[in-house]
């Protein structure tokens, strides 16, 4: 049963960048993580700790230097060319020469061979993210929030096993951001995707997630895990509940200690 077996499992995963010197720079080390079907997991941590790198490694954009990655119990490399993950980038990853619809269709290119089927799928997901009527708009004609909706629709349209989101709301203003968080909650409730969500905003992580993972300073590894047992459905009011504030404080403390251990705030 898929409910007992994790969708994604990372065992002792490490990653390095080629540094300026002879030695490669260790970005991630000893990551052990297992994500259940339908779980929403957030990753927070000091900037430069390798959160984004982990998503890239999981998605195969970057090789792991050690350890193994299992998807549905199989080594990620062997799962082959099947599209198992959707990736929502920070910003600016919509192709400016394609309309919303065509941007969503990009992921379906070469996968769904019947053009009409692909079209239907793309429209369905644009509708899900609330963009019906904007199918033929170019990205420059859309607001930042709407662009990220297209981004999300594109990732969902390929029906991924896992949805990876790399600070998708980082470029949005505070108001739009709060609104998009609620929208994401709604969409997630409807699709029940397994999500790994990278953010530097603790409140965002707590509001959205079943579990928040705190990364250590570079080389990044898991410093703490925190289960978020806040009842769902959650809304704006969730953010002012004592339980929420308590969790936020708890996680903040972990990060604060982490930054102190690493040599103070000025240095990261």
């Amino acid at each position, binding site marked *: 049963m898929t409910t007992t077996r994790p969708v994604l499992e990372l065992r002792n995963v490490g990653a390095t960048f080629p540094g300026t010197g002879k030695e490669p720079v260790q970005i991630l080390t000893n990551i052990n993580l297992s994500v259940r079907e339908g779980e929403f997991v957030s990753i927070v941590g000091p900037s430069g700790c390798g959160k984004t790198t982990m998503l890239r490694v999981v*998605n195969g*954009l970057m090789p792991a230097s050690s350890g193994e990655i299992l998807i549905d119990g199989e080594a990620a490399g062997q799962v082959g*060319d099947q*599209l198992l*993950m959707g*990736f929502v*980038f920070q910003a*600016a*990853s919509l*192709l*400016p*020469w*394609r309309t919303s619809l065509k941007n969503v269709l*990009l*992921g379906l*290119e*070469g*996968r769904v061979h019947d053009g009409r089927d692909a079209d239907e799928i793309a429209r369905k997901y644009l509708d899900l993210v609330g963009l019906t009527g904007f199918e033929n708009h*170019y*990205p*420059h004609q859309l607001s930042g929030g709407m662009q990220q909706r297209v981004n999300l629709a594109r990732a969902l349209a*390929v029906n991924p096993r896992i949805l990876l989101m790399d600070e998708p709301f980082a470029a949005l203003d505070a108001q739009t951001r709060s609104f998009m968080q609620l929208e994401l909650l709604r969409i997630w409730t409807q699709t029940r995707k397994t999500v790994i969500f990278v953010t530097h905003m603790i409140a965002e992580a707590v509001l959205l997630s079943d579990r928040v993972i705190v990364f250590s300073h570079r080389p990044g590894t898991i410093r703490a895990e925190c289960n978020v047992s806040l009842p769902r459905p959650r809304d704006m009011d969730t953010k002012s509940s004592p339980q929420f504030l308590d969790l936020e404080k708890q996680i903040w403390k972990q990060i604060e200690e982490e930054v102190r251990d690493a040599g103070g705030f000025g240095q990261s």
Partner: protein
Amino acid sequence: MVDGRVSATARTILRLSSVVAGLLGWHYLAVVVVKDGGVLASPLEVLARAYEMTVVTGELYPHLFASSMIFFYGFGLSLIVAVPLGFVLASTRLAWDYANPWITAAYTAPGVAFAPILLFWFGIGTGSKVAIVFLACSFPVLLNVYHGMRVVNREYVELARCYRLTRWALFRHILLPASLPFILAGVRLAVGRGLTGVAVAEWFGASEGLGYLIFFAGQTLNVPTLFVGVAVFTGLGIAGFEIVRQVEKYATPWLAGGPWK
């Protein structure tokens, strides 16, 4: 935005008044300052001569036709060769490094200097003239295709990897449209360079063509005809630019407006 919102009509008026002012200045210079038709013909004289050459005798048309043919062959051939070559060079580092010294040399050297050599090789016929135009057009296109491909946003390429696009799809859906504005800018440059090539090619031992017309008129001190030839070249250049602009408008609708929107 430097000058706020300017309406389309106002912009047209601005352009027209610039043209009229230029023509008036020319006329003033010719009639009041120089006062010698053998040195500087006035716009009216040129217009009269143009009327004569197009309507009365029709002597302009064979020249126009000959020059146009040479331009289209050379220009078209350069697109057929330079665009794919630019893609190939951009996608393989080795090929680029290997070809780069020669491309740079050929691009920066004055193309006109090669004309006599080509005439020497290919003889005084269509072949040598087309070759001159071809060379003049090829390098701006080649370099722009290459650089267009090199500056494609890395994120777009990652996106293609994320969604497991094939190499062909990466080219067709990402690299090609991303570099299209650069390619068209190269084509625009090629129009100007190609027309220069036509003029140069026809100066050396041709018996027809606009370049020949200008050269011959210059030798025989036929100033109005000289100016008609130059004006026709200018007209061709403007027409070429306008065609490329329309292609840009159609092919890159996402760039509509630019900073002045």
